[in-house]
């Protein structure tokens, strides 16, 4: 509830958050895909618990005019006190491994300023969205306002109608890589996965264009 009451009292928000909110004052106009700024992102975390686990790193790269723009990317490593031995093996971020790390608060500021009003893309986006939102809330901020696309869901739409309804099939990022023929180097680093997600997104959109989606909004309302 604390979050909702704060919303009515915007003066307590830091400037970067107010600026971020101002992007979403007006209802978003539908745009062709090639003039929309997309940001593919991924987080590495200490685990899968939204409350107790923490974000260790965020990797993100932008897609402008259908092109993955490497000069428009961000790679952040966070200082965290929570640490989970079990997940270190997956992404290899130890508490002190020499990477320049910043506080969660500055990390969020960097990330929010970087994404602006872009349409976000992530694989199994629900998890990354919740992890970021929890972090934002810990620092007295609201939740992400950007529209978010999930490559897992979009990919399902490219499948043949015979297989599409099979909701039990769960497409991992590895599945996408092998089917869409994307090189799997740097899996399990946030930036590596964000880059792969961006490429997967381009390939998926090219497939979807053949059937129906032409504008950004189409991507959200695919059947």
């Amino acid at each position, binding site marked *: 509830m604390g979050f909702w009451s704060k919303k009515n009292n915007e003066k307590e928000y830091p400037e970067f958050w107010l600026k971020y909110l101002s992007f979403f004052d007006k209802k978003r106009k539908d745009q062709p895909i090639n003039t929309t700024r997309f940001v593919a992102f991924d987080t590495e975390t200490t685990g899968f618990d939204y409350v107790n686990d923490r974000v260790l790193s965020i*990797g993100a*790269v932008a897609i402008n005019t*259908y*092109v*993955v*723009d*490497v*000069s428009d*990317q961000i*790679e952040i*490593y966070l200082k965290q006190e929570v640490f989970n031995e079990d997940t270190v093996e997956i992404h290899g971020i130890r508490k002190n491994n020499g*990477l*320049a790390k910043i506080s969660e608060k500055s990390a969020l500021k960097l990330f929010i300023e970087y994404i602006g009003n872009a349409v976000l893309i992530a694989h199994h986006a629900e998890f990354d969205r919740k992890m970021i939102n929890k972090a934002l809330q810990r620092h007295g901020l609201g939740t992400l306002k950007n529209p978010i696309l999930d490559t897992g869901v979009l990919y399902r739409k*490219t*499948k*043949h109608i*015979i*297989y599409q309804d099979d909701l039990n099939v769960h497409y991992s990022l590895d599945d996408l890589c092998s089917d869409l*023929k994307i*090189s799997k*180097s*740097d899996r399990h*680093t946030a*930036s*590596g996965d*964000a*880059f792969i997600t*961006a*490429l997967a997104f*381009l*390939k998926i959109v*090219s497939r979807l*264009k*053949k*059937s*129906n989606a032409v504008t950004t909004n189409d991507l959200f309302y695919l059947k």
Partner: protein
Amino acid sequence: MKNTIAERIQDFLKQFPPFDILKKDELLAISSQVKVSYIEKSAHVFRQDQPCHDEFYVVREGAIGLYRNFDKEQHLVDICDAGDLFGLRIMIIKKNYRMSAVADEESIVYAISAKTFEPFIEENKEVNKFLLGTFASHARDYYTETEKGQRIDNTISIEVAQDLSALRSISYRKKPETCSLDHSVKDIAQKMTKKRVGYIVIVDDDKYPMGIITDVDLRTKVATGMFEITSSVAEIMVAPIVTYSKKLTVAEAQIALIKHNVNHLCITKDGTRNSKLIGILSDHDLLVSFGNNPSVLIKEIKRIKKPKKLRYIRKQLEKLLKSYLEQDIPTAHILSLISEVNEALLARVIELAQKDMETLPPVGFSFLVLGSQGRREQLLITDQDNAIVFEDVKEEEYESTQQYFIRLANKITKGLHSLGYEYCPAEMMASNPRWCMSSSKWETQFRDWMTTPTPESTLLSSIFFDFQCLYGDEKIADALSDVVFDGVNKSNRFLALLGVSALQKPSPLGFFKQFLVEQNGEHKDTFDIKTRAMMVLIDAARILTLHHNIKGVNNTLLRYAKLSELEPKNAAIFESCAKAFRVLIKFRTRQGLLHNDSGRFIKLNTLGKKDKLKLKRCFRPIRDIQELLRVRFQLNTLL
């Protein structure tokens, strides 16, 4: 700040010149400015005569073809693979592009801005030299064109063909026509006429070649009255003769013919005149070997060891197809020739995949191609549709056996993909466990589809029942088709449902006799020639042949021919269907070659009035055959 993405791009670039010359931090700086694009198949990176982009490109994966339009024709200049640079014009001249860059297969390219890269060229002479060299190699064709003022014509296509053929050994004629010295001109002229050849080699007792007489000699030396027809061959023969060994390559043969100004080369055992004559090569043979000949292509296919090289054959095949269409060769003939080469290609891919497996197959199997390939109606490359049937094995061995064939199928589908066959979006491929099963499992599957027809199973059976055994044991495949006929005999309901689906295909013409076009999606406002026209003809032919229990005829045209035989009273309808199908398939192929796609979606505004009328004439038989199905299977009650 750490930049993992840029580091990976750097890792890739540093393998290739000119990036390998750059210092690590320089290359990282360049890599962090790269823009990564995904180019779908047949999409342009840039077009000829358009202003230069601000960046040049490096292929990350896939293949980008560089094409130059010239004399209203498109010439392939080069194909760029992973690590190759293209679009370098911005670095050198900064004028409009002189060629188009088109994705030959889906590709990922890195764009590097000229501004970022320029400082490194100025500093580094090696980099500069490399860029100039690459640029010049792509630009070669139009230099010859502008400097010499002559058509480049075939030179480019031959250049490309050379990759394939110039370095391979020639195929010469064995058992050349010969005679000894003691014959008269008349004798040998008679012999040449009888054997229908344009030359004769004069040999001594040891079969060593001494001289040659060709049509030209008879014309210039005898018909002019210079020599009598009773003269001895020794008097008019051309000697000494030009001889080579059989190791001669096509390129060398070409040069030899020009150098000696002759039309025939003699092939001898050790390549000198002092050894036995073993064959002859004419300029005509050489022409044939440049690939515009299906039998040569098939021979070549059998020699190739790498799937990637097979791709060039597939390219040659497209050229061949184009020339057939231009020459107006009958469709049925084109279909069978192209299928022949296609099947040889596919069989080779399977052979190579098989060789690549660690063990031999545990049991016999049959590799089936489905749909249009199964019907031998595929002229243009489309999706892969295939399946594997293997012999029944003991229950406990089933899984490992299936795993083996799935692994094999994975290699095959990958090989086919590298040939240009896209993976099937519906995954109707042998690598899918659903379509890689034992004989008895397939039989159960087929029976299931026939006894409990659903819209999905009718769709699947219309694809799967048109199969053809491409490789492996044909008996296994034959047994499966028996199941189909058996099922048909037991249940008319199945045929009726197939019939319903044929009648439900969207109709080609609207109420006002206008073409009905697609309403949405990428193909909006185009005419879908496959679903709206061809499928009905294909479906009807299949249903009726099943109904008549005609086995072993999978091809739509052959099916109609057979049906005309069996039902003389409807022969007129069947013949008009066959005719319509021939026109449609040609139409689709032409469109496909024109736009480098499957030809399925036709942009009506690019058609002339004549073509539109031609298409419309094909629709009449479609209506007739639908009517025939409706009556025969009493489909009105089911619709």
